[in-house]
């Protein structure tokens, strides 16, 4: 497994972990109370920032086995990342589009959207971004295996 594949699996783990954790917190404390519940907001922020930090820190750690080739990332890896970036871009755009249509249709009559959705859009954008890149990379390796 290449370092980039390991990174993709890590991204997948972090993305799923963040999703499950945030969902669990919302279910435990009640999503509707997000507007007034400072603790709920704080936990959601900590989970997002914490997940990102774990992801960023582990990316910096390079593991090299003795006797193995010095090259960790080569042209094929770069090509896979380039394609995964397109997957990432489209996934984030699609998620924003879905949010926009769903919220517009759901709150059309009220003419306003609860503030909680701004946070949810930001959090989901972050998670979709991490997950889509990881999935794009893993699909790329599967196709070029």
């Amino acid at each position, binding site marked *: 497994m290449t370092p980039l594949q390991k990174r993709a699996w890590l991204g997948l783990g972090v993305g799923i972990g963040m999703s499950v954790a945030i969902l669990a917190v919302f279910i435990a404390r009640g999503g509707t109370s997000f507007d007034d519940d400072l603790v709920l907001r704080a936990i959601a922020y900590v989970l997002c920032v914490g997940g990102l930090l774990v992801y960023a820190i582990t990316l910096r750690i390079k593991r090299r086995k003795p006797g193995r080739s010095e090259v960790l*990332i080569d042209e094929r890896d770069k090509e896979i990342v380039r394609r995964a970036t397109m997957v990432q871009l489209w996934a984030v755009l699609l998620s924003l589009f879905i949010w926009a249509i769903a919220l517009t249709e759901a709150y059309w009559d009220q003419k306003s959207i609860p503030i909680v959705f701004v946070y949810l859009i930001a959090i989901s954008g972050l998670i979709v971004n991490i997950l889509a890149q990881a999935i794009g990379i893993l699909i790329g390796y599967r196709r*070029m295996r």
Partner: protein
Amino acid sequence: MPKAEIRNRIRRLRFDHGEMTQEELASRVGCTRQTIIALEAEKYVPSISLAFRIARVFGVPVEEVFQYEE
């Protein structure tokens, strides 16, 4: 992704050159062993630069390593 139209003889050439390992070839041309595996399986077409580096390691013209098939 459609299967590459570029065929190659990397596996054959490795064995003809003292059963060179994929790891050794990867190290000498500056790529990962996984890329050599993908090249041998014809799942990946290398850049011109990598193709020349591989040919140079075997001491043959690039056409002897890679063949274009229509």
